[in-house]
């Protein structure tokens, strides 16, 4: 218990991203550090998730508070084995447990940043016109843009803080960029699919309020993307 509290107190170190300090986390991937990162993802993700869905309806906020941490954990679960193998094959020298902690650390800093910004975003949502009211269409676009900006900022910052740590612990010169690129590509690929399966997150006002769409498993995100890309071309050729 004492170890978990100590690890929780050390969580802001993730945002500092000092390699000489965080390197020690990866060299000693104890259960307390894993749990502390998981707690940060759960709480930070839930807080931001609530904000993300709240404009559509308070119930939607509750749904997304559950779904956002779930999305992160499902992405980790899907890629955990592969990321561990890639870290070893590509020469970082990190084992499976260390890779899991590295992933959790990266997502935890993302969750800390988004969680910390959620009160501000929540205030904006409370001040915005309600769905169906006057100015709702503009509010929808503005809030969506705000969330995209926050998520992009948190994602880029978390990765920029984490990369020097990976470079410091890697056994082979040149392993860090390879491992980092492989993890990033895998997490983006899987994360996009899980977020597609777990949609809606923001919730279009015209569509019904639901936890997940009934057609969640009818097509993949990539099929949808392909259809969107090819549809205008088919129209032109006709």
């Amino acid at each position: 218990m004492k170890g978990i509290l100590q690890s929780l107190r050390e969580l802001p170190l993730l945002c500092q991203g000092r390699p000489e300090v965080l390197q020690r986390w990866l060299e000693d991937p104890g259960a307390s550090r894993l749990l502390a990162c998981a707690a940060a993802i759960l709480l930070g993700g839930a807080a931001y998730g609530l904000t993300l869905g709240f404009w559509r309806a308070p119930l939607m906020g509750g749904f997304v508070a559950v779904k956002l941490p779930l999305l992160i954990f499902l992405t980790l679960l899907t890629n955990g084995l592969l990321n561990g193998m890639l870290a070893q094959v590509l020469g970082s020298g990190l084992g499976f447990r260390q890779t899991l902690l590295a992933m959790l650390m990266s997502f935890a800093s993302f969750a800390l940043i988004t969680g910390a910004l959620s009160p501000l975003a929540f205030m904006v949502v409370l001040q915005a016109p309600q769905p169906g009211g006057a100015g709702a269409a503009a509010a929808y676009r503005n809030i969506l843009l705000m969330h995209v900006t926050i998520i992009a900022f948190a994602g880029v910052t978390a990765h920029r803080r984490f990369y020097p740590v990976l470079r410091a612990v890697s056994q082979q010169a040149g392993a860090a960029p390879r491992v980092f690129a492989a993890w990033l590509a895998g997490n983006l690929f899987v994360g996009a699919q899980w977020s597609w399966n777990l949609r809606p997150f923001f919730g279009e006002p015209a569509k019904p309020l639901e936890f997940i769409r009934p057609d969640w498993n009818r097509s993949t995100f990539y099929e949808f993307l392909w259809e969107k890309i090819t549809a205008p071309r088919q129209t032109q050729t006709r």
Partner: protein
Amino acid sequence: MNQPDIPAPTPSPATCHIKPDPMALLPMEPGTGNVIAALLKTPGAILHELTGGGRPRLVVGSLIGITLMGLAVFGGITASISESQWWHPVVKISAGTLFAAVICLPSLYIFAALSGIILPLRAVAGLLFSVTGLSALILTGFTPLIWVLGTSTASVIVPGALLLLVWLIAVFFGTGLLIRCGRALGMTHRLHLMLWSGMFLLVTLQVSCALRPILGAGKSFMPQEKKFFLEHWAEQIRFAGD
């Protein structure tokens, strides 16, 4: 507000010590778990056992076991998203890859010699099953992703393309290990092992076509018509387009 105690930075073991060379020919402890760890982290230990260690047969046996185990897991996941009977993909993928490896063994022996590496056939077999073993491990790592995408679509083309992509990635890592091993064993020409890697990939792709259908439903266990794999893929894409 309490600030967390930031420990004073001290040099870590990772930066103090000489970083270990994964291809160093060092002895390893016996056991399948250690062979898996060596395949992923320190392939030099496997090379040591194959070329100068006391248990080359045991290591080759472990590598074959890892290959079959990994392919069975990959086949099982493929079966879970396939329209055929559950055991068809498991048997076809495991036996097909093993068959492809066996028919590629003589050419690897000769191409290794052309690359400037002289090894006994048993050690070359060990190298070959290191390639298939690492590829099978990487395939196992991809199984959750395959399951997620396979169960999220009604199409056969999407999981088919994904399986092909994953197969290419796994063989890329496996044959990359072969090149690294060649370098550690004093390879003088890389070209021949790269050519062999390309041939091995083509053989596995043709075997997958010869054992079709792996993902879709078929009238029989084996196909009635002989085809080149590119022709088969082109037909499948045309069929999906219609």
